[in-house]
């Protein structure tokens, strides 16, 4: 399930089925102040690669962020100016706006470790006790 919390992103909702907007999660209310993730995913149309990226991001966020995030999906074919403003070259590109620092992860997000590295999220599922690896 995807969470569209940004009003602007609702325009893109029709690309994907089963979208809903939700922020009514007890966990996010509890911890949101501390570490709410604001993410934007730039994709090109409804391509297979777009689907893979969204599925991967969905899974990772579901597993690791437990609802503590806002995600907006921008289709650069429909909204090229936003890609221009953000100087996006590659698709898919995931941008973590909050918490700082600004980070970019490009690719279909199939490499979970790299995604977590980029988002600066400590994996919870199997290696919760590990220290966060240093970013390159």
């Amino acid at each position, binding site marked *: 399930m995807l969470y569209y919390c940004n009003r602007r992103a609702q325009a893109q909702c029709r690309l994907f089925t089963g979208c809903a907007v939700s922020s009514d999660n007890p966990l996010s209310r509890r911890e949101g102040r501390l570490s709410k993730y604001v993410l934007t995913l*730039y994709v*090109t*149309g409804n*391509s297979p*690669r777009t689907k*893979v*990226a969204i599925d*991967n991001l969905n899974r990772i966020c579901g597993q690791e962020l437990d609802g503590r995030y806002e995600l907006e999906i921008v289709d*650069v*074919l429909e909204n*090229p*100016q936003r*890609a*221009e403003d953000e*100087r*996006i*070259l*590659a*698709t*898919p*590109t995931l941008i973590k706006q909050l918490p700082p*620092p*600004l*980070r*970019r*992860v*490009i*690719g*279909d*997000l*199939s*490499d*979970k470790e*790299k*995604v977590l*590295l*980029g988002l600066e999220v400590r994996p919870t599922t199997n290696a919760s006790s590990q220290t966060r690896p240093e*970013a*390159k």
Partner: protein
Amino acid sequence: MTTTNHPAVEKLRTGISSLDIIAKGGLPKNRTTLISGTAGSGKTVFAVQFLAAGIARGEPGVFVTFEEAAADIRANMRSFGWDLAQWEQEGKLAFVDASPDPHIETFEAGAFDLGALLARVDNAVKKVKATRVSVDSLGAVFSQFSDQAMVRGELFRIATALKAMGVTAVLTAERTDDHGPVARFGVEEFIADNVMILRNLLEDESRRRTIEILKFRGCDHQKGEFPFTIVPKGGVIVIPLSAMQLSMRSSNVRISSGNKDLDDMCGGGFFRDSVTLVSGATGTGKTLTVTQFLQGGATNGEKCLLLAFEESRDQLVRNATGWGFDFEKMERDGMLRVVCDYPDLSGLEDWLVTIQQIITEFKPQRVALDSLSALENVGSLKAFREFVIGLTSFIKHQEITGMFTATTGSLMGGDSITESNISTLTDSIILLRYVEMFGEMKRGLTVLKMRGSAHDKAIREFTIGKGGMQMGRPFRNVTGIIGGAPMHVNPGDVERVWTQYDKAIDRRRPESISGT
């Protein structure tokens, strides 16, 4: 194969006139052209100029930058007189800034493509209704991403998309060596339809820029390297040597050399669009010949330009006054312009462009350059030859009469490097020589060559005084003047030699007729 009326591929007149000449009409329309060159070869300037020339012709453009930030390019190009920010405001130009942002850390996590870039380019092209796109530079895309195969595939996709958008595109690429592979990553040339190479070579301690069209798919272009220069307020100026020579006209109008006797020796004066080379050792009277030439022009109501690389303006004026010519009055009357400068101030290509600009602005009917030898050491021999070809054809094209001087190394006889290299390019050659006779240095003058006209073959003695050059009798009884070893001959011997010579000709004549 193809006729000029129906070329297989349409050309887009770039507006860079000198480039259009060597490209025979312009860049192939609706295609991609790769501009490859080493660092500092002028790729970015060319890429921007391509758009600037388009905007001047009412064709909007898009600049895609992978290397320098858009802000830097806007600032750098201001010195060429191109106000990119202004054009952006007017909707004639759009930037796609794809330069790397060092402040944002980027991670690669899985497969991706450059779909966003393509969407941005497409958006920018639609926004300003662009017909021209410049991409600077392809190599920088490769260094932004680790997956080279993906980048190659994506660049190919973008090149194809550019064609589909109906734009004519210039893509730049770096190369590591001026004579090595076309471009650094070895694949750039396959992305584009056409390839042009910019070179920036170090020759004899001076820089020499050349441009070469390596391939134009399906259409014609001039082959080989052409020198070019980059000037402020102008950008890239190609010097298309062969093209200029082809379009020269020819005039039968005679003009005065400024000296009645010299006119007679030349069969009535120089031709209007001819170039005369005056060669001689130091002090033989080259500058005087030039001064007379300018005075002759001014008297005739012709505007004259003097390019002096050896003497200062004051020296020239003083010398002229000594011979009885008033340069200052001629200048006041607007009949004369004297340009004095150190030859080493800039490269020969730059000199050529500068001189062309002065000529275009002042519109003289006579141009004198004193002396070519001073320019000889500024660049390589090849560059010097090209300078002379460029200048000669330029002034002939404008129907200007030219006079160049060349200094011979040795006092007696001999020839100069200048002379031996450019004598075929000039229409007339006048030799000024010292003649040593019985302990005295006399001066001799001969018209060695005069294209398209009869002329006096004698070597005449002349003296220099108030009023200029006074022509005297021919040196009939001296031989070896040009060889540098004058020998006095008994007048009786001279007479006998000439008689025998005439007889020999008389004897040969019937044979040659019967033989044919």
